[in-house]
């Protein structure tokens, strides 16, 4: 089983890296881009001792306590497999 955690900057928190990436992409000629926000993605492989409900719970806790800083970031957890 795998838990996927997506960490993104909260709306309203400046993302200068996203802006720089957007600029580079636009230099390549891609138009119509309103905004690019950069985030982080984590894959947590879980062994067979963990059931699905616990996996969701554990991944949410990890996201809250370590993977994301709730002052500036939001997170989303998906468990699959």
């Amino acid at each position, binding site marked *: 089983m795998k838990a996927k955690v997506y960490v993104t900057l909260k709306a309203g*928190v400046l993302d200068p*890296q996203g802006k720089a990436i957007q600029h580079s992409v636009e230099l390549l000629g891609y138009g119509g881009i309103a905004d690019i926000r950069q985030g982080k993605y984590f894959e947590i492989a879980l062994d067979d001792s963990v059931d699905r409900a616990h996996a969701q719970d554990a991944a949410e806790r990890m996201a809250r306590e370590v993977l994301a800083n709730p*002052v*500036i970031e939001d997170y989303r957890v998906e468990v699959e497999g």
Partner: protein
Amino acid sequence: MKFGVVVFPGSNCDHDAYHVISKHVGQPVSFVWHKETDLAGYDAIIIPGGFSYGDYLRAGALARFSPVMASVQEFAARGGFVLGICNGFQILCEAGLLPGALIRNRDLHFICEHVNVRVETTDTPYTNELKRGAVLRIPIAHAEGNYVCDDQTLAELRREDRIVFRYCDAAGNVTDAANPNGARDSIAGICNRARNVMGLMPHPERACEDLLGSSDGRGIFHSLTATLALAQER
């Protein structure tokens, strides 16, 4: 009075802090390896600058899980003085000892230069020997020094007089042009509610010798030693 300088893997201003405390402040000082947990006997703990854990995940994010940090939390809760400089400030924010967070500089650059900061309050153990409104010339060296917090936190910091330093020009005017990293309200340093924990992005330990361009940082350490001397008299 005894100072401790915490050393994480990746700290690189630990020796500067040690040097300033032993040579200029003239007080006993020891390094405290991040796996140590006994802070008995220390009066002040410095969390120095650097790149603890390589800044992996977020600046300061992993250092907060080092064994020593639980002891630093207890030390601070008991009223011990904790000074976080640069990466130390980031760690204190990640650890929840100070509110807010430090994100990437608005122009993305790592900035290493002398800046001016204005003393916003003298009601802290770190600034009580300074004058309110005084301008200190102290270097910064960071890529993630852009202080952010929500509106409620900012209002609280203002109301409780906890904004200790703000970036300014040489004349002491706080302007956007004098804000090197985009920090909210030009905040360069803040303290906690009990005022014993302070974090700041500029490096006062690098500004204690005229030969190095400025000795304005000394006032911060002298304020702290004056506070500690007073506490010991009581």
